[in-house]
């Protein structure tokens, strides 16, 4: 659906900041999250996990556990079938190892027992015999021909000679004459980068409550970003019809992409089916780190050429990502997005994805983009330093704009990059003075944004109030923004609308809450559903007035005759139409089903000041400003919240967060003590500047905003640190030992 013609529409509600409808539940502790549900006769599930990075399972003896008083079911991979679809089989095998364990923390068996003590005791009684195999966790090592093979038979087609079977994906993008481009450059910089794997770090661990009856019907309560996708995966794995499995999404305690697949849900269902009792399965934090999905780690080579006056002549990058123990093609997004901010005549990107003995990666906010753009933006910054150019001016000079053929192929429509850069240039932050040991860095960021399959139902109640049923869990205020768009369209008060999140049987399919799609796609479907309801309400008014349906229009919550020719009638309120609906044809429901396309891409620019302690290598973030194009900010508080939250996740990625593996291939920091996500005292206020360059693909101009903000911080901070210490950093995280070592090497 295209942007409404009336571009200059004056909104009544859009752009205001009303309280969110689920606010009271969430500040009083009443809101029900994944682990908060119970069921009569409920059992406690626990999972036994591999202590080895890579091993063949020679045998599993569960007899002693089964014999323990209070144990009601024990399951292993033998309790699951073999799904035909390879990708579903991978998901299942990730939930419960078959034949081999592929990473430290991989599930090998599970129990359901009357309480947690018995369950823990039962796990100790399960005897697993392993044959330990050689393992590999580093991305570059995993690609070598002689690397231990994680999963045989899964290599990409046409695997190049000298590469390991672990390599599953290869992508190339770009256009133009590279050689000619580099020949025109006055300065060429080539540099290699590494980034560590990080975790989404949602505060709520995975949790679910599964009930499988002997009648073949299943109920699943689960914290997830997508109840429909969970249903499809679980129904496939459990070999049941999707209609027989109802999945209800609990309130969700953060996801950031990490809750877009299943880890424990099929196991809980299998335990319930075997025990005949409801089973609650909740991961502890250690399990979250060892066995859910972190992001990819990466290794990158970038080469960029620039003229003396700051024009990029050619750009090349090779990206190598590891995505854990199963095939994963996330490098695609790195290879596509890396140069999106630039208008280039010659650009080429190459991406390789490899398996390693690590947990299978899950999506993490703009998956694949942050580490790629980090490498590119670092080299652009270094070129500016070497050539004595202003980094903002140089980006403006090369900025992608409407009509630019993007580095990944398509030509851009209206985009907000130049406006965002201009806003940063004019902001006082950019010219504020810096003290000793301080540095300023900036970076552009980009994400594609998606739409996807969406259903919304809008029910008119007899009192004229409105109920919205939508199918995407509310991670960060979407009930508010959806209610606002419905109220705006209907011309009624925000308080008259209530939005609920449906279970899988109460509404048609909705894609996962990902790709920054909800405010865009669900919003679009809501507006369309409201227009559908308006059409129906106008037709009821027409019936009452006995005039033609087309002679009625809708304004500010009233049906009105469209002109003197239509007849002279008092406007009819939504309340009157609702109250008389039983007499005029029955209940009124507007609805809309769509596979929403046309999500506009999103650009952001981050500006950061840091100070580095030259004696310890510690970095302090002094000041941080986020500039981003939101298309149209429906609820600016929650747009700012996305910008701030994404920036801080990026700060963690840049400075301290990392998966640390030992020589033995075991994860050494599976806890929030040593996996160091930023705490409140680490940070300054995060200032935000929202730009609104309307997305032509949405009636109100909305663009997704959730993912882009995690992209720029990595390079922005690396650039600031590098400028502060006078030395280019090229690996993340820039933990103090790394910075101090660099300082010492400088002498």
């Amino acid at each position, binding site marked *: 659906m295209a942007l409404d013609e009336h571009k200059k529409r004056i909104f009544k509600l859009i752009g205001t*900041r009303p*309280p*969110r409808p*689920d*606010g*009271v539940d*969430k*500040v*009083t*502790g*009443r*809101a*029900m*999250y994944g*682990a*908060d549900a*119970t069921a009569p006769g409920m059992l406690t599930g626990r999972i036994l996990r591999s202590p080895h990075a890579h091993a063949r399972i020679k045998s599993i003896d569960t007899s002693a556990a089964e014999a323990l008083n209070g144990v009601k079911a024990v399951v292993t991979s033998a309790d699951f079938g073999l799904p035909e679809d390879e990708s579903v089989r991978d998901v299942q095998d990730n939930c419960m190892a078959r034949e081999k364990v592929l990473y430290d923390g991989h599930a090998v068996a599970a129990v359901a027992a009357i309480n*947690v*003590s018995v369950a823990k005791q039962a796990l100790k009684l399960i005897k697993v015999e392993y044959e330990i195999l050689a393992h590999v966790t580093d991305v570059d090592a995993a690609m070598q021909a002689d690397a231990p093979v994680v999963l045989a038979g899964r290599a990409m087609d046409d695997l190049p000679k000298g590469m390991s079977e672990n390599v599953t994906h290869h992508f190339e993008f770009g256009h133009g004459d590279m050689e000619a481009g580099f020949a025109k450059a006055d300065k060429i910089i080539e540099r290699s980068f590494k980034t560590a794997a990080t975790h*989404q*770090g*949602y*505060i*709520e*661990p995975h949790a679910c409550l599964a009930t499988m009856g002997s009648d073949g019907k299943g109920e699943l309560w689960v914290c997830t970003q997508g109840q429909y996708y969970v249903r499809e995966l679980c129904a496939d794995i459990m070999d049941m019809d999707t209609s027989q499995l109802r999945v209800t999404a609990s*309130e*969700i*305690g*953060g*996801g*950031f992409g990490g809750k877009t697949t299943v880890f424990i849900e099929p196991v809980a269902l299998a335990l319930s089916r075997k025990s005949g009792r409801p089973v609650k399965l909740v991961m*502890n*934090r250690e399990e979250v780190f060892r066995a859910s999905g972190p992001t990819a780690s990466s290794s990158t080579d970038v080469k960029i050429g620039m003229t003396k006056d700051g024009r990029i002549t050619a750009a090349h990058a090779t990206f190598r990502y590891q995505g854990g123990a199963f095939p994963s093609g996330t490098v695609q997004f790195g290879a596509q997005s890396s140069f999106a901010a630039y208008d280039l005549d010659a650009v080429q990107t190459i991406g390789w994805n490899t398996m390693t003995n690590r947990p299978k990666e899950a999506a993490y906010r703009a998956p694949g983009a942050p580490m790629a753009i980090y490498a590119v933006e670092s080299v652009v910054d270094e070129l500016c330093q070497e050539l004595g150019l202003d980094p903002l001016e140089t980006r403006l000079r090369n900025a992608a704009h409407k009509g630019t053929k993007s580095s990944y192929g398509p030509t851009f429509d209206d985009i907000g990059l130049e406006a965002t850069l201009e806003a940063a240039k004019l902001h006082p932050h950019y010219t504020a003075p810096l003290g000793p040991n301080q540095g300023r860095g900036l970076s552009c960021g980009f994400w594609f944004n998606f739409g996807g399959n969406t259903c919304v139902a809008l029910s008119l109640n007899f009192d004229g109030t409105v109920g919205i049923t939508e199918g995407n869990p509310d*991670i*960060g*205020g979407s009930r508010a923004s959806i209610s606002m768009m419905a109220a705006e369209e209907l011309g009624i008060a925000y308080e008259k609308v209530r939005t609920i999140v449906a279970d899988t049987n109460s509404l048609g399919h909705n894609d996962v809450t990902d790709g920054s799609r909800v405010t865009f796609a669900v919003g679009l479907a809501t507006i369309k559903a409201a227009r559908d309801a308006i059409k129906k309400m106008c037709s009821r008014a027409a019936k009452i007035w006995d005039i033609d349906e087309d002679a009625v229009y809708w304004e500010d919550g009233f049906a009105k005759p469209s002109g003197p020719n239509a007849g002279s009638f008092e406007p009819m309120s939504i309340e009157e139409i609702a109250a008389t609906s039983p007499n005029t044809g029955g209940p009124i429901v507007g609805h809309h089903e769509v596979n929403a396309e046309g999500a506009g891409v999103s650009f952001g620019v981050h500006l950061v000041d840091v100070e580095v302690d030259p004696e310890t290598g510690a970095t302090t973030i002094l000041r941080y400003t986020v500039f981003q194009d939101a298309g149209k900010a429906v*609820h600016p*508080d*929650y747009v*700012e*919240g996305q910008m*701030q*939250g*994404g*920036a*801080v*996740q990026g700060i963690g990625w840049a400075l301290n967060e990392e998966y640390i593996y030992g020589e033995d291939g075991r994860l050494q920091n599976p*806890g*929030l*003590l040593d996996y160091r*996500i930023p*705490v*409140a*005292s680490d*940070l300054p*206020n*995060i200032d935000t500047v929202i730009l609104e360059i309307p997305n032509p693909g949405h009636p109100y101009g909305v663009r997704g905003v959730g993912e882009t903000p995690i992209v720029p911080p990595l390079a922005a901070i690396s650039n600031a640190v590098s400028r502060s210490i006078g030395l280019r950093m090229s690996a993340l995280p820039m933990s103090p030992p790394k910075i101090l070592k660099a300082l010492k090497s400088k002498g």
Partner: protein
Amino acid sequence: MKNIHVSTTINGDPTEFICAPDESLLDVLRDRLRLTGSKEGCGSGDCGACSVMVDGRLVCSCLVLGAEAEGVEVETIEGMADGDDLHPLQKHFINGAALQCGVCTPGILVAAKALLKKNPNPTDTEVRYWLAGNLCRCTGYDKIIKAVQAAAAEMRGA
């Protein structure tokens, strides 16, 4: 393991429960008393989602045994509002959009209330250090700090 009988006071109400000797106060609150507002984010005192007050001290309920609750006064998020009347912190968290997913919110509210009791007029830095043990992954903390300050100002009558 023989269960232990405990008499305690929770949010002003006399409460009795039995628990295993190794069962945490958090598990007792959530699983035995159905007070699920306190959350388990880590089980090791690193995230603060389980914050409660025990005898007027802010603690992580995952690091207290249920058995230790004998004879003490426990305050949880469920006791923060006075019926329908929200505490100023609760109001300002909603109005200031200081929550996104909301799972860390109960713990942060309990911790912030403890701060304002001790220090009604904190600086931003003091708020940030006091709340350093309450992890939030959604907000970047910015709006949380501002909401605490707004509530503090209201409570001071400013």
